[in-house]
């Protein structure tokens, strides 16, 4: 077993454990923090795959923006941090069967894929993954249309959120 494999196994275990804690812990702020830990584990996995850019973006977007909004919302809206009530509903067995089936299906499919047993080749010298990515995002031959459509969609969502929250009567955010 190489050092990289050991690191991967440790990171994967921590990520999965954190993911499990997200859904089992009772305290909502703690759950959000476990979610941060799980997202961080994913970022470390990207680093192991030599995808530095993705790893850093994962930290900026998911940990730095989305998870902090979760924590913000939980802190502002919940008076009592402890979630009451049962943690499972009566469909739990269906979810479990679905999860096992998905795992089995993915396992079966990936066994038949030849990329599963190959080791990754390193980048050729002088290959700059970030400028490749940047060019692909804005070149007409690449992904400029989906990229722009996604940007417009995000702006529309932003404007919509402001419109929903805006209360024209007192000219202030709806309070």
């Amino acid at each position, binding site marked *: 077993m190489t050092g990289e494999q050991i690191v991967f196994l440790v990171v994967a275990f921590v990520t999965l454990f954190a993911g499990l804690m997200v859904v089992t812990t009772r*305290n909502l*702020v*703690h759950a959000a*923090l476990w979610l*941060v830990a799980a997202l961080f584990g994913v970022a470390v996995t990207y680093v192991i795959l030599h995808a*530095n*850019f993705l790893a*850093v*973006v994962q*930290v*900026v977007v998911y*940990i*730095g*923006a989305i998870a*902090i909004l979760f*924590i*913000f919302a939980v*802190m*502002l809206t919940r008076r009592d941090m402890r979630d009451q009530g049962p943690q499972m509903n009566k469909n739990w067995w269906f979810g479990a069967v679905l999860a096992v089936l998905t795992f089995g299906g993915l396992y079966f499919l990936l066994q038949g894929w030849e990329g599963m047993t190959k080791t990754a080749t390193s980048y050729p010298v002088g290959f*700059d*993954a*970030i400028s490749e990515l940047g060019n692909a995002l804005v070149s007409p031959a690449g992904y400029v249309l989906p990229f722009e459509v996604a940007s417009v969609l995000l702006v529309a969502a932003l404007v919509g959120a402001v419109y929903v929250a805006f209360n024209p009567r007192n000219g202030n955010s709806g309070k």
Partner: protein
Amino acid sequence: MMLSDWTLWLEWLIKSLVVTFGLLTGFAYLTWYERRALARIQARIGPNRAGPQGLLQPIADAIKLIFKEELVPAKADKTLFFWAPVITMIPSLIIAAVIPWGPAIEMFGRVIRLSIADLNVGVLYLMSIASIAVYGIVLAGWSSNNKYAMLGGLRSSAQMISYELALGLSFATSIILANSMRMLDIVEAQRNLWFVVVQPVGAVIFWIATLAEVNRAPFDMPEAEQELTAGYHAEYSGMKFALFFMAEYQKMIVVSAILATLYFGGYLGPFVDRFPWLGPIYMIIKIVILLFVMIWVRATWPRIRYDRLMAFGWKILLPLSLAIAFITATGILLADLSGNPLYFWAIPVVSVLAGLFTVAVIYRELRRKAYGRV
């Protein structure tokens, strides 16, 4: 192979230790420097009893803080209350990993780079660490189970998230100018001309946004003493409080280092190619000057009102930094396409005009608010 691996690990270890201890010592003496400089500005003397010029004062403070009793509020979230100072502390240290402190030097027959990590996404790494720095403060505020602390934590998260946008755009401006996200390339691109000359407004926006990010005056709303009785760290005492203090001052040092790297030529200076050891010295000189500006601002500017802080971040800084990034990119593109350097020199001119226009708008708005007319 094994041997070279082993020495590489040792090199990393030594470099990390040097940077960490440098920051810790820097923190201790920055508190002394700030107190002395503030005292000078306010026509006082400041701490001068412990040791010559009061130089042993930080050590005395550290010993006092270590021996202080630590209190934990009865209904605090014990785990998070313990971890919040640690979570605040870690980003302020690891953010320094990508800062280049000098050109490569030769020592013991091997070339040693004076930065811990030479990431190809260096600037984004800074962004990501800056964005997780808010966690410690928010968690400290929440876990204390204290209304003031909670308000301080909420304020700080709102403020840091808002100013992160302007910060990111001024990062982008220097990325565009250097055509790289690697910190070393950004410094080398300033060999002929510091970016502050090309993009003075970008540097100012960066400076303002970092002041807000590290919760320094005039943006120290999260710990406003008069309103929040020290804000998010109201319930902390002893060494846990010292960790918050430490994180704040280390962040000051680090953001000064980042500003020096991105806009003020980093380790570059006269004769730095012939004597590479001058690199870290130039860097430290630039950092000390920028730190003095921070202290100077704190000594002279009153705290901004909270609604104005948010309005300033969203309605002034964000559009201005968008315009600055746009102007920079357009100027470089036009200069590239036409081969005429005049377009490149249009960048500082148009940027300064945009900055002046912004100042005029703020002035008009404030006058109208104050007198009901222009």
